[in-house]
């Protein structure tokens, strides 16, 4: 008895194990194997029997995967044979997929790098930038003053450490040719807030606020010291002062940005410790367990308290911005739009291939029906068709990897240098996997359906189908739905592309208020140690302007304190004579040479510009821009009025009003701005040279003129001002180009999809068309029939796409410039473009339908 029970038990286990085999194999041999198994059990007893059962069951487990592989190998052989046989189809499908997968993984890799990958700082989520905001005047990122920092430190309970920093451009000497460095001066807490380990040496000690020490960037270390570890303890001379190198940061440390070459301690001068000027950027580390929102709430409360205490702080708020957002926020809209766009292209690609598979599934009903009649099971055939689909998607994926790494490399090649964040990009494995997985999933979903349908074909259906009585209505509907979704996605993409192109055109056309063409500009910072006296600085600039003016081809020379088309110059609150309250809306100030306005062709609206009479000892003067005049002297004449830029600063008399300029760049609004003569405040650092010819051709001569006066004086890069303008919108142009490329790809793929659908419809309805023609329909009627199909797909797809476009456009409003998301012009263009593409795609199938010869078609059946 027990032996019979154990026998049936073992047989149950064995039968269960047989389910590991492919179904076909199990159905073929399972019963036999069970019989043999039972025979084997019966011939032994006791432990031997148990052992035999165990071995047999384990063998099944070991053998089963191999059988699966064999089936797969067989399917793959068939699939590869198919690829060889139907080359056109395979190339179209694989190419489409590779393009989709490659582009998607490339763009996703870049997006992930910026939006998801961890920052290279320890506990980076606890660090945040602290910005002063002035919601009333629309400033959301202003610097802070030293006294305000001290108050924050005193009042905050949730923030562990505050560090402040500011940029400097000192001259590096005694280490090759003198050059301008980009240095961050930071309080010693800096590296405790943005935590990172040096690769060599150490970082600032808490007591080193006054120390002349420097931490070098990895790039600077490699460039100037060849990466030698003995750099620690060596001296670098910045603006002629010696700084001892104490450490080197890793290459990944790029805070606050990637261009920084060294960090030195910030030593605020006594007057800076009390000054109300906004000149410091702040970064803070939250206490453990404190969320950004909690810290933000506390800082907002502190700002409110300070505002209640002091009239000057009334309109100021505080904004905490995580380091990630600080880095990625400006790029986020572009990245999201591009990611969405490329995802759209991938979807269209997959849908296209699905459509091709569906059509082939229908075409192969005959073949399938015959195989079914010969005894192949529906499952087996579906499995084979599915393997074909998956093979196509797999090959597309493999080629997509190549496409993707090529796309990333291409992105790096064509990206303008200003899009510096791209330089770290490489094809990301997980993003590639994601793209392939998406394609494979689509392949699975869209591959299963047509395969299953095709595998269900009966011989009777097929033989009737071959007579032209198509029963593939479902397949037609399926493909039509696919093409409608393609049109919708393409519409969405084209609409977004349109808006971006329109924005780019607007940005290129925008009035700067000054003439950048024909102007060469470069930075020239005099080291304070060498040019301490203002008269010496003045003399240098006077001589330089004179020398450069003498260069043949130069038609004008001017200088200013700040780079045009760069950051806004420093700004400050100010006082107007006769008004009790300080004016909090900051006024920017440029120091300029006499010919500045003439050279840049900035029109004088009222009063006069600076003249030789405005010397160091004469009345101190200032020129304001139109916006300042309109804001602070509405309807009145500001000429002769006086203002001062600090409580104890001297009064400055307004002598002129000049037209507004977008001096910070096309996408920045006009600020309240002012200009002062360099003769009264010699703080020049930017040279401007106008010529009738090519500005770049003057660079060498200008450099020579500088070195004639001071051979040790470094000159920053001399570039045409127009080039800076070009660089400024380079990022926008780049995104627009990419989006356009995606939009065009989407359109092309959609056109292929639409063409495929119509060609298929026309072929499937040849019989019907022939009958119609033979009973009196004209080719024109046939054309109408085809076009009715096109317009059905087009109208529904367009409507869905436009609805989607309206919803998403609101999302990327921030990227638009000079155009609203709902611009009717743009939508009309979208509709026109899609209609044209649809008609082009319909052309060949329609022509083919009209040429159907009823005599031939009907006779052949």
């Amino acid at each position, binding site marked *: 008895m027990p032996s019979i029970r154990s026998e049936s038990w073992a047989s149950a286990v064995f039968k269960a194990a047989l389910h590991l085999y492919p179904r076909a194999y199990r159905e073929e*041999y399972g019963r036999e*194997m*069970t*019989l043999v198994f039972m025979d084997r059990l019966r011939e032994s007893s006791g432990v031997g029997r148990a052992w035999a059962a165990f071995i047999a069951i384990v063998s*099944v487990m070991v*053998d089963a995967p191999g*059988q699966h592989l064999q089936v797969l190998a067989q399917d793959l052989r068939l699939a590869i044979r198919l690829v060889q046989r139907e080359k056109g189809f395979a190339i179209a499908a694989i190419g489409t997929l590779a393009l989709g997968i490659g582009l998607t993984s490339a763009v996703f890799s870049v997006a992930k790098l910026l939006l998801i990958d961890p920052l290279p700082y320890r506990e980076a989520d606890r660090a945040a930038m602290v910005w002063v905001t002035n919601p009333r005047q629309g400033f959301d990122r202003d610097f802070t003053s030293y006294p305000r920092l001290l108050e924050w430190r005193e009042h905050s309970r949730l923030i562990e450490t505050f560090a402040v920093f500011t940029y400097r451009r000192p001259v590096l000497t005694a280490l090759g040719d003198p050059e301008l460095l980009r240095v961050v001066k930071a309080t010693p807490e800096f590296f405790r807030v943005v935590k990172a380990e040096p690769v060599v040496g150490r970082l600032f000690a808490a007591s080193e606020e006054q120390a002349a020490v420097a931490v070098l960037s990895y790039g600077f270390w490699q460039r100037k010291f060849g990466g030698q570890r003995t750099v620690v303890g060596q001296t670098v001379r910045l603006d002629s002062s010696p700084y001892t190198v104490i450490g080197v940061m890793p290459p990944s440390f790029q805070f606050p940005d990637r261009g920084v070459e060294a960090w030195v301690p910030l030593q605020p001068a006594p007057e800076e410790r009390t000054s109300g000027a906004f000149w410091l950027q702040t970064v803070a580390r939250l206490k453990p367990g404190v969320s950004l929102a909690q810290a933000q709430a506390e800082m907002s409360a502190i700002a409110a308290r300070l505002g209640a205490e002091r009239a000057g702080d009334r309109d100021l708020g505080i904004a905490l911005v995580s380091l990630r957002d600080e880095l990625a926020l400006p790029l986020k809209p572009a990245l999201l739009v591009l990611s969405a766009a490329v995802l759209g292209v991938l979807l269209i690609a997959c849908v296209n291939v699905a459509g091709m598979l569906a059509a082939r599934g229908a075409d192969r009903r005959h073949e399938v029906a015959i195989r079914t009649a010969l005894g192949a099971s529906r499952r087996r055939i579906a499995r084979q068709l599915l393997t074909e689909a998956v093979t196509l998607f797999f090959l597309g994926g493999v080629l997509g990897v190549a496409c993707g790494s090529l796309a990333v490399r291409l992105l790096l090649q064509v990206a303008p240098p200003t899009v510096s964040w791209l330089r770290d990009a490489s094809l990301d494995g997980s993003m590639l996997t994601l793209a392939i997985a998406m394609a494979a999933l689509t392949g699975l979903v869209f591959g299963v359906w047509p395969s299953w349908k095709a595998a269900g074909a009966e011989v009777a259906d097929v033989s009737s189908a071959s007579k032209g009585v198509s029963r593939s209505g479902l397949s037609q509907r399926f493909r039509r739905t696919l093409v409608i979704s393609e049109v919708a996605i393409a519409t969405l993409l084209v609409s977004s592309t349109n808006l971006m192109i329109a924005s780019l055109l607007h940005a290129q056309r925008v009035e700067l208020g000054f003439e950048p063409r024909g102007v060469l500009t470069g930075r020239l910072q005099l080291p304070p140690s060498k040019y301490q006296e203002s008269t010496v600085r003045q003399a240098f600039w006077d001589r330089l302007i004179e020398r450069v003016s003498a260069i043949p081809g130069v038609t004008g020379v001017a200088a200013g304190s700040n780079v045009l088309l760069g950051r806004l110059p420093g700004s400050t609150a100010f006082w107007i004579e006769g008004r009790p309250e300080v004016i909090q809306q900051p006024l920017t100030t440029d120091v300029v040479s006499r010919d500045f306005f003439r050279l840049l062709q900035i029109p004088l609206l009222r009063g006069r510009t600076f003249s030789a009479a405005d010397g160091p000892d004469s009345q101190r003067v200032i020129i304001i821009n139109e916006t300042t005049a309109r804001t602070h002297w509405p309807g009145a004449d500001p000429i002769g009025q006086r203002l001062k830029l600090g409580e104890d600063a001297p009064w400055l008399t307004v002598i002129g009003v000049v037209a507004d300029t977008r001096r910070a760049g096309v996408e920045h609004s006009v600020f309240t701005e002012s200009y002062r003569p360099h003769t009264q405040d010699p703080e020049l650092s930017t040279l401007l040279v106008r010529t009738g010819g090519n500005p770049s051709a003057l660079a060498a001569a200008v450099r020579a003129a500088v070195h004639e006066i001071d051979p040790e004086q470094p000159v920053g890069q001399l570039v045409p001002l127009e080039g800076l303008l070009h660089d400024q919108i380079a990022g926008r142009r780049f995104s627009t180009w990419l989006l356009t490329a995606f939009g065009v790809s989407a359109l092309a793929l959609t056109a292929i999809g639409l063409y495929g659908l119509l060609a298929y419809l026309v072929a499937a309805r040849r019989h019907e068309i022939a009958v119609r023609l033979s009973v009196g329909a004209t080719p024109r009627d046939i054309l109408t029939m085809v076009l009715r199909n096109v317009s059905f797909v087009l109208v529904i797809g367009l409507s869905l796409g436009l609805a989607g476009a309206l919803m998403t456009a609101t999302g990327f409003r921030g990227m638009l410039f000079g155009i609203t998301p709902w611009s009717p012009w743009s939508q009309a263009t979208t509709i026109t473009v899609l209609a044209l593409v649809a008609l082009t795609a319909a052309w060949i199938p329609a022509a083919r339908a009209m040429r159907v010869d009823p005599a031939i078609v009907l006779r052949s059946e």
Partner: protein
Amino acid sequence: MPRQRREGPEPDDFLPLPGDTFDVLVSLADGDRHGYAILREIAERTSGRIRLSPSTLYAVIRRLLESGLIEELSERPDPAHDDERRRYYRLTVLGRRVAQAEAGRLSRLLANARASGLLPGRR
């Protein structure tokens, strides 16, 4: 179910044969057998040294069927004796030639080993 034969394979194409495969072919050399009979014949012939598991046996049978070295019989050779559910297998002409070729190959190897003195010269 009749299986398709590959066209014109030569016996040498199949050599060397895996041991299990050779054993199955040998067990069918003197008569048609069903699965369990093949197992038993192999076990007896090798004095129990080789005992194929059912899964290994049918993996081999499947491979042999697909390559046309054996075929499944449509009628049972000895209806009186056997369970009608059993499937019987028989060597095809090609299968027999392959088994012979393998046996020849093995005996040549054996002769070589003897000639080199690795094995004694006589049984």
